[in-house]
């Protein structure tokens, strides 16, 4: 915050004046104490500037610029009529960065939250040859109103075209991509029924049969008639604590259904039926190294769940013994968005979870494999100049130096007036002003230690907003990760990467046997510049969002990638020859040199 100039600084040492002198000053000259000089003045303290001990990075060149208008993304988020404090409107809506027509350029899908009677509808934007986004919502089949929460993208029928799944307050919807920008809703036919308040969701192939299954994380059993006055007695949005949690739902994609797409609800048989909680975030990845996808679910004000795949269609919850249930202080916090990436360069994915402003975000370092250690303090992610209530978050190597940086978007759930924001506030409706907060960027030093560079990135961090969704992707295929942020009752923003960057490589991994769809669950590792880097392919992370499904690598000064290894979702492993930097490549399963075999393969379902 830039209010250092108008507040007195705390003196380095306190005046050692005798007591009588203090009394004299504060009584005889008390009249002056408030007038800008006098004895009492030096004692007044309203410091807001960080102390020298904090790792706030020095000003540097800005990394991002706001390109929303320049690229033609015109989306105003709607939550319907405010004032009733309907809780779902306070949690925002997500976005998807995906290439729905396979033209090699990422497109955008943005959700509305105004309810089924709202004139505001979800919007689909197609990226044109010139990099501009054209609204192609009309006739797409996706231009629907609703209480849209999250979006997940996955090719459910292996036809090579990514399909769209959305969660709403009291239902879910699956849209089949029919090609040429047309989608058709197939929720009922597909057997998907989720009568809860669905939040983040993800496609994964948990049984390794080649068909993408679906996990839906549900929030609380909310009752709209419950009143939740704030501390002043004014109506406010409820938190989760007054409501029972709900169970996540796991849907198995039933293969070979003769041209029909069909899912089976396997929640109970998979062992998820006993896990009722206020779920918000989810990521999928192989935590314990057995090459079967596991699940991490972030619960709001409740322990996290790490669901370890038992390779027989069931999961066991092992967050406690694997160190990711509680934070390093042994406390349960309001866990919201999840970022997954290798913060410290050891080729194991680490986990960052966002929390309330009254708490601290948490960074769990992974290692030894399958076990997590909360390294929040040592990584200094909590040592920021200000704290916000974080939702969307991603690990993204913004400057392509080979170390993923961390981005967090913030916005309150309780009214909290902030003094000011350099670029003002996002919401024109004063109703939301009390909830607006500034977003943050942390630069990674390559060893997993972070420094807050938000004040150098005012395009991204200078405006206060009620931000919720954050998705990352290389929108213009220039090797720099760009970002899309969704904000409650305000315009979505597109941030273009303008950072001074190193070299890069983007790898798309596809499975020809399954319609050449993206290989969700693959682990891609490259060797470049004497360093190994790993990226885990699954677009569902952050909060309510689906990200660019391609693996992005920052290479720093390296101009050549020596080799690439891929562990495919079925557990097999292939090695691919090196490539020159600064290009986008596609690796097809089966076209590399097989170097390993599936661990624990064959169990199947």
């Amino acid at each position: 915050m830039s209010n250092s100039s108008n507040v007195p600084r705390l003196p380095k040492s306190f005046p050692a004046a005798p007591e009588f002198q203090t009394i004299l000053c504060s009584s005889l000259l008390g009249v002056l104490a408030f007038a800008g000089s006098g004895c009492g003045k030096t004692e007044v303290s309203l410091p807001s500037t960080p102390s020298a001990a904090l790792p706030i990075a020095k000003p540097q060149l800005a990394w991002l610029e706001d390109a929303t208008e320049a690229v033609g993304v015109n989306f105003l988020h709607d939550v319907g009529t405010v004032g009733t404090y309907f809780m779902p409107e306070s949690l925002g809506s997500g976005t998807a960065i995906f290439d729905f027509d396979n033209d090699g350029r990422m497109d955008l899908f943005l959700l509305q939250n105004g309810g089924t009677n709202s004139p505001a509808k979800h919007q689909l934007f197609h990226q044109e040859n010139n990099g501009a986004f054209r609204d192609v919502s009309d006739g797409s089949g996706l231009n629907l109103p609703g209480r849209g929460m999250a979006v997940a993208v996955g090719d459910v029928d292996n036809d090579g075209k990514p399909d769209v799944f959305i969660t709403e307050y009291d239902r879910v919807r699956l849209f089949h991509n029919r090609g040429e920008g047309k989608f058709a809703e197939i929720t009922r036919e597909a057997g998907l029924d989720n009568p809860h308040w669905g939040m983040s969701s993800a496609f994964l192939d948990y049984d390794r049969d080649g068909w993408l299954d679906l996990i839906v994380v549900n929030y609380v059993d909310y009752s709209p008639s419950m009143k939740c006055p704030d501390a002043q007695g004014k109506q406010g949005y409820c938190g989760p604590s007054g409501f029972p949690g709900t169970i996540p739902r796991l849907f198995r994609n039933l293969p070979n259904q003769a041209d029909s797409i069909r899912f089976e609800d396997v929640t109970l048989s998979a062992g998820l039926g006993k896990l009722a909680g206020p779920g918000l975030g989810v990521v999928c990845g192989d935590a314990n190294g057995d090459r079967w996808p596991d699940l991490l679910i972030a619960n709001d004000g409740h322990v996290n769940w790490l669901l370890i795949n038992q390779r027989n269609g069931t999961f066991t919850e092992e967050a406690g013994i694997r160190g990711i249930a509680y934070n390093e202080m042994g406390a349960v916090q309001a866990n919201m968005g999840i970022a997954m990436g290798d913060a410290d360069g050891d080729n194991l994915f680490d986990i960052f979870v966002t929390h309330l402003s009254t708490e601290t975000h948490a960074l769990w370092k992974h290692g030894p494999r399958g076990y997590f250690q909360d390294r929040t303090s040592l990584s200094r992610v909590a040592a920021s100049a200000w704290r916000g209530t974080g939702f969307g978050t991603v690990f993204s190597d913004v400057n392509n130096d080979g170390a993923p940086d961390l981005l967090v978007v913030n916005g309150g759930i309780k009214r909290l007036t902030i003094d000011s924001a350099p670029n003002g506030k996002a919401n024109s409706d004063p109703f939301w002003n009390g909830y607006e907060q500034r977003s943050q960027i942390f630069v990674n030093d390559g060893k997993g230690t972070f420094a807050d560079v938000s004040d150098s990135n005012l395009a991204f961090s200078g405006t206060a907003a009620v931000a919720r969704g954050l998705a990352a992707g290389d929108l213009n295929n220039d090797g720099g990760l760009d970002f899309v942020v969704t904000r409650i009752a305000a315009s979505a923003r597109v941030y273009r990467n303008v950072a001074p960057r190193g070299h890069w490589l983007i790898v798309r991994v596809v499975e020809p046997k399954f319609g050449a769809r993206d290989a969700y669950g693959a682990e891609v590792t490259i060797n470049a510049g004497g360093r190994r880097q790993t990226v885990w392919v699954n677009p569902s992370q952050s909060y309510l969002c689906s990200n660019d499904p391609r693996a992005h690598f920052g290479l720093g000064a390296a101009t050549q990638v020596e080799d690439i290894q891929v562990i495919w979702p079925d557990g097999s492993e292939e090695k691919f020859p090196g490539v020159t930097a600064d290009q986008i490549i596609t690796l097809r399963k089966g076209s590399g040199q097989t170097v390993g075999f599936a661990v624990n393969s064959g169990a199947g379902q």
Partner: protein
Amino acid sequence: MSAKSKAKGRSNVQKGMPKATSTAPVHRPWPWWAAFVGLIAVGVLGWQVWRNAAPPAISVNTAGFDPVIAAAIEEARNSIRRAPRSAEARGRMGMVLLAHEVRAEARECFAQASAIAPRDPRWPYLLGLAHLVDTPVAAATNLDRAVRLFPESESMPRLRLADTLVSLGRLEEAETHYRHVRQREPNSPWAGLGLGKIFNARDQAAEATNFLAAATQDLSTRKAAQRLLLNVHQRLGHTNEAERLAQVVAGLPHDKPFPDTLLAEVQRLKTGEAAWIDQADEWIKTSRVNEAAQLLERTLQTYPNSDRAMFFLGRARLRTGDVAGAEAVLTRAITLAPGNIEAQVQLGVTRLRRGRGKEAQPCFRAAIAAKPNLGEAWYNLALSLGGDPGQRAESIAAFREAIRLKPNFIESYLGLAVVLRTEGQKREAAFELRRALSLDPEESLRKKLLEQLELAEQP
């Protein structure tokens, strides 16, 4: 005066002063008297100026506030008007504001109080607390100042500062403070817990375990310390011990709150409908139902149309066994707010308990109409229908809907099985019971399921 100075004085007179005449000097006492009066007048005037020059009391926009809270704030402001130079009055207003989360204005009050009484440690301490929510760096700075002003023997502010520093990743500074407390109070569970956190964060397992030992024995830190120990053992690869501790932690009640006397004083200033209902709810949860009921009755005197207070009073009366009283107050709540889903379900349950299933049904139906995915209402509706042979088909459908909505609620399977068996559908009943048993129910429920299964499997 020394002789030397006297001589010097004389010399000055001789050199610079007008020469004395032979005429005797005229004695004029009135200027001294006038000066004295003048001094008093200036003093009074100065006091007035000083008193009135204090900044006005912080103004707070209380539009939309609970009137009781607004009145409490206004009363605090009036105290400042009466004594503008009183740090106590300004600090008190800050506390009232902080209690009601009016943080920005609370900070201003504490800063003003601190300016008036710079040696009073309470104001920078509370200023620090008011910063904790969103500006922890400023919080740490103010808490640090408070620590320097509090007597050495006071551990509470130092522990609060240390905890804040830990959250900022400033472990070395935090360690100094925890150790300081430990030096004075070797068995301080909070200092032990804090040092345990720091050494756990540094991966120094043996030291962390050592520091946590005392904290695991204290009711204020037991659960947090056990969780940290779990972390430590998990890091060391002691899987069995970690699993054992995970079970221990799951069975422990919440730790008692940190004993912060100043914060407790702030909390006590909470007033108004929401605060009273929250307090009553807390008492209901901790089995102090009579006190809760009394507080809620008093709340209703101030807020006679509060359907929330009525709902909680109904709940409290049910717990005290006053079922008729509960029904009366819940009926009143629904009359005032027919859309109150919680009150509808609670009233339905109350009537069901009194054996009036038919009268309970409209309540559950109203709740379902307002929230169709409310599994609890479907379950209770099914129960209320199950006793009537003419309504068993509807009961079965309601149980099935309850299961669809909450497949983890095992009682629904049991209820469904009973109705199915009563209807002669034994095979279906057995199927549902087996489904329920596969969900790994608690022992008492498992017993009931097995009993029903035995009945269902009888020819």
